[in-house]
């Protein structure tokens, strides 16, 4: 059962305590997934021990640019949003939904083309270590999409219900981050089992962690690893880390009613402007932790007796996303980008009662043209924006 807020008092873990937590989870059969360094970026992958975490690594993110950098401390979570989100694990880029088999033509048992459908039912057991506030919020948003409506997605449900989330409050937001203005961070408010705050020490001394249990499962885990009671000084130090992160947001979403602004701006000239820059490469939708569109594909073998239904990520920037016999409803980049932005920040509220944006900044960082969602909104809002007097 999940509860919001601390289920028991916070404790302090040192490196040995964090290592014990990872070992305990692995011993209990969890696949522990955490950020790792690969191909010059932070990538979520299975870890076998704390040593696999990216110690002393940070990042530098700008519109259209991502680089890792060395930190002058030994923080393990001293970077902003990794290249890809946890979406890859709960809602994989390609999934086989089911397979069907029918006997070959002419065989005795062939009942006029009858077929049998089989589905894969293996369920992973993930422990997500290092999820940020924006990412935890993104998972909660995808929960609404796949579990909150009249129909639920069985594969998502299975992976999600078993997943354990050990979140980390953000210490080092990037130039592209704006979770504060989306009310999604940098502090984890809900949706995790354990929330850590990493306090890095100078001269590469070992960092330590303030650990709070947000669920019974999280509390049970913390009870099984060596820890010390959290002193008021430790709590203050951890609070200072999050406060510092909040003060160093690289960007800000304009403080306007985005739903209303966008529904009134469908013919704004800015759509033509952004269409000149947007390549419709789909990168923003792939890195977005909440984008959920998918397409299905049928795959068959050469004999025609085996068929497979796959579901893969799709993007509203694909020409066939809106295809209807005869042509696509949205055939130009102007209407594709407008669909993406008005959905993400506007009509998402109509459909799921929340914004589709958590301010992780991935769409800004990973856009090859460096298009900045906050800047586009600023341009569209124009005179709606009240100049804030200092």
């Amino acid at each position, binding site marked *: 059962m999940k509860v919001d807020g601390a289920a028991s008092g916070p404790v302090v873990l040192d490196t040995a305590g964090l290592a014990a937590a990872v070992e305990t989870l692995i011993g209990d059969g969890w696949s522990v997934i955490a950020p790792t360094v690969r191909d010059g970026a932070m990538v979520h992958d299975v870890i076998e021990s704390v040593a696999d975490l990216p110690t002393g690594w940070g990042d530098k993110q700008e519109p259209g640019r991502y680089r890792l950098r060395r930190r002058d401390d030994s923080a393990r979570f001293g970077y902003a949003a990794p290249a890809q989100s946890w979406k890859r694990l709960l809602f994989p880029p390609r999934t086989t*939904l*089911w*397979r*069907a088999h*029918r006997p070959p033509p002419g065989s005795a048992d062939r*009942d*006029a*083309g*009858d*077929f*049998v*459908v*089989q*589905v*894969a*039912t293996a369920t992973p057991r993930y422990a997500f270590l290092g999820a940020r506030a924006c990412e935890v919020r993104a998972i909660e948003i995808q929960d609404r999409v*796949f579990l909150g*409506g*009249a*129909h639920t*997605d*069985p*594969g998502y449900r299975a992976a999600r219900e078993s997943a354990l989330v050990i979140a980390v409050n953000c210490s080092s937001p990037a130039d592209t981050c704006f979770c504060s203005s989306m009310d999604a961070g940098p502090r984890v408010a809900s949706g995790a089992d354990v929330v850590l705050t990493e306090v890095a020490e100078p001269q590469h001394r070992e960092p330590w962690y303030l650990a709070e249990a947000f669920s019974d499962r999280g509390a049970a885990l913390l009870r099984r690893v060596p820890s010390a009671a959290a002193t008021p000084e430790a709590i203050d130090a951890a609070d200072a880390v999050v406060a510092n992160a909040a003060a160093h947001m690289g960007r800000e979403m304009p403080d306007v009613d985005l739903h209303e602004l966008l*529904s009134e701006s*469908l*013919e704004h000239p800015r759509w033509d402007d952004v269409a000149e820059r947007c390549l419709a490469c789909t990168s923003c939708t792939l890195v977005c932790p909440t984008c*959920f*569109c*998918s*397409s*299905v594909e*049928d795959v*068959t073998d050469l004999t*025609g007796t*085996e*068929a497979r*239904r796959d*579901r893969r990520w*799709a993007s*509203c920037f694909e020409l*066939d*996303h*809106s*295809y*209807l*016999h*005869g042509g696509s*409803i*949205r*055939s*130009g980049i*102007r*209407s594709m980008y407008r*669909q993406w932005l*008005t*959905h993400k920040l*506007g*009509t998402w509220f*109509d*459909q799921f009662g929340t914004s589709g944006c958590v301010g992780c900044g991935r769409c800004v960082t990973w856009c090859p043209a460096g298009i900045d969602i906050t800047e586009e909104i600023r341009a569209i809002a124009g005179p709606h924006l009240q100049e804030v007097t200092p």
Partner: protein
Amino acid sequence: MTATATATGPMAPMVPHRYRVVSRHTETSDTVTIHVEPLGDPIDAPRPGQFAMLWAFGIGEVPISFSGLPGDGRLGHTIRAVGTATSALAASEPGTVIGVRGPFGNGWDVGDADGGDVMIVAGGLGLAPLRPAVDAVLAERDRYRRAVLLIGTRSPDDLMFHDDLARWRGRLDLDVQVTVDAADTGWHGDVGVVTTLIGRVPVEPGNTLALVCGPEVMMRFTTRSLIDRGLDAERIRVSLERNMQCGVGHCGHCQLGPELVCLDGPVFAWSRVAAQSAVRER
């Protein structure tokens, strides 16, 4: 680990139910009506205006409305061959087994016209999802006052459901009018677009529910004509078509502004979608 799927089991709603084609009737040069019956678990009983996802083994899956609901578990679907999946389904001879998922969407809810008039306006293949609504009105004819069915097609050769047309036209309590866009000398009926029929039938605006289905341009002009006759846009229902791949609001393809057409529709009050439908996409 694998398990044999039961379409009502844990992997529903993405797993198809197996249905066998029991009849295939050619409607026009590119359109057929098939009826299918369940081999195992049937889908839930559909309502007029809902749709199913039909799967041709190994080829693909498409959203197709129910054009016939005989009430005995069989399902009628009228399919125009426009792509690979629709061509395969339209070519399905009796005995072929296809996959069926559904029913999806909200339906016409023609019962909302209770005590008032019903006007049904169909353009071309748009008559397919309306056919069960016509029959629903006739099945409980006493609930309604005046019932009008206006049908427009491109040419006489595009007229579908000849047996139903004969049956409907034989009734004195259903006003059926048919027009074609263009015809040769063999046609003795009306020529002109379907909106010309709207000006011709008596309309009691405050007491009429209109159900409209056809190509989007036909629905735009039809709703305009109905509004000109005094109908409130809230009392005009249209059935919209969009790319649909899941039927359950998860795949994202069918969005029309805030609407997920597969879930919130496909039937909408015109008042709800008129503004969004007028937004130019380019």
